[in-house]
């Protein structure tokens, strides 16, 4: 945008300069095309009827014209110089104005941009605030929805299980068995199992006790009899053992 404005200003300046030169040229040409009436008497051209006078007058007039011409040239140059000076001053002023305009424009542009930025920032802040508020709102809404969904799920689950429980109870009632009967039946089964386990445990423990008692008795017998049994009794016991072995057919000699 700044570049476009600069081009326009240069174009206008060029037009002004061209116009000034054109005006200067036109003024110079008009000076040389001035009518006789405008020229002093001694400078008027001589028509054909009065040639000699005219010829004589012409020589004099040439001297006059040359002087006038020089004056005219000087005047034209002065005018042209004035015009050029004026044009240059105008162009300089235009350029100065243009530069100032550009600076102003740049400053204004900065301001505008700053205003736009400020506006955008403000809008952005507003938008952010709005979004944040919307987010908070959405979050609250989601939380509420979640809580509601959870509550609904719990309620639904409770309802489902309540229905199943009711159905189970209903089936129990239909089958003719009361809950108490079922509990009693299950209790009896458990008691039977427990009794059996206790009996097995007692049996196992008694077996262990029996083994321990047996070992203890053997030790008592051994300790008492080992000392108390005379050698001849030992020998008799051994011979008795051999007799029993013979009866059992242990020796096939």
């Amino acid at each position, binding site marked *: 945008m700044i570049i476009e404005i600069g081009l326009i200003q240069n174009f206008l300046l060029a037009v002004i300069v061209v116009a000034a030169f054109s005006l200067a040229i036109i003024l110079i040409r008009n000076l040389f095309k001035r009518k006789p009436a405008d020229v002093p008497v001694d400078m008027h051209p001589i028509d054909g009827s009065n040639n000699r006078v005219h010829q004589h007058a012409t020589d004099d007039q040439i001297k006059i014209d040359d002087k006038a011409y020089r004056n005219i040239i000087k005047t034209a140059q002065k005018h042209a110089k004035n015009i050029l000076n004026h044009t240059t001053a105008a162009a300089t002023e235009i350029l100065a104005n243009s530069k100032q305009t550009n600076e102003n424009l740049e400053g204004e542009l900065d301001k505008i941009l700053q205003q736009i930025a400020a506006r955008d920032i403000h809008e952005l802040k507003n938008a952010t605030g709005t979004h944040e508020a919307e987010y908070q709102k959405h979050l609250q809404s989601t939380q509420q929805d979640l809580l509601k969904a959870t509550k609904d799920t719990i309620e639904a689950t409770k309802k489902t299980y309540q229905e199943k429980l009711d159905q189970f109870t209903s089936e129990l009632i239909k089958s003719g068995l009361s809950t108490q009967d079922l509990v009693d039946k299950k209790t009896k089964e458990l008691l039977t199992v427990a009794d059996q386990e206790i009996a097995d445990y007692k049996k196992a423990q008694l077996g262990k006790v*029996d083994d321990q*008692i*047996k070992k203890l*008795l*053997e030790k008592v*017998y*051994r300790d008492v*009899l*080992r000392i108390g*049994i005379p*050698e001849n*009794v*030992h*020998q008799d*016991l*051994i*011979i*008795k*053992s*051999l007799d*029993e*072995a*013979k009866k*059992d057919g*242990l*020796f*096939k*000699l």
Partner: protein
Amino acid sequence: MDLTALHSYLRTKRETTGLIIVIEKLQEAVFKQNFNLDNALSKDVPLEEKDVIEKLIRDSGINIENRQDVQTFLTKLQKEVSSLPTIHIILAISPKEEMIEAIHNWFYQNYKKTVLLDISVDETVIGGGVISFDGKANDYSLRNTISQMQSSG
């Protein structure tokens, strides 16, 4: 071969091992120069085994001057001793000579045969014994009797 002379001497497995060692020594001596059985018995054999072997030789009627006969006799004796039946008995006490003699005699009286006794001791037997022969075993101990009494209530 008449092994009657061995009956009073050869009663246990341990005694048999000692006799087999003596027999092996005599067999080696037979092949030596200037072999003399009496000298060999006097030099290499304990007194108790010497008496038993001399008795067995006398009962067999072999010529002790003949090396071949002596060698044949020793080989046969070693084979007979090694093939004697062995009775394994577990007792509650370590038996004395009299008890071993009584057990050994019991077999001779009942079966007319000389047996070797392989005796071991276990106090838990209490009395009597655990007897095994030829891969079979029966418990005739007081321990077993008491255990059966307890089991029957």
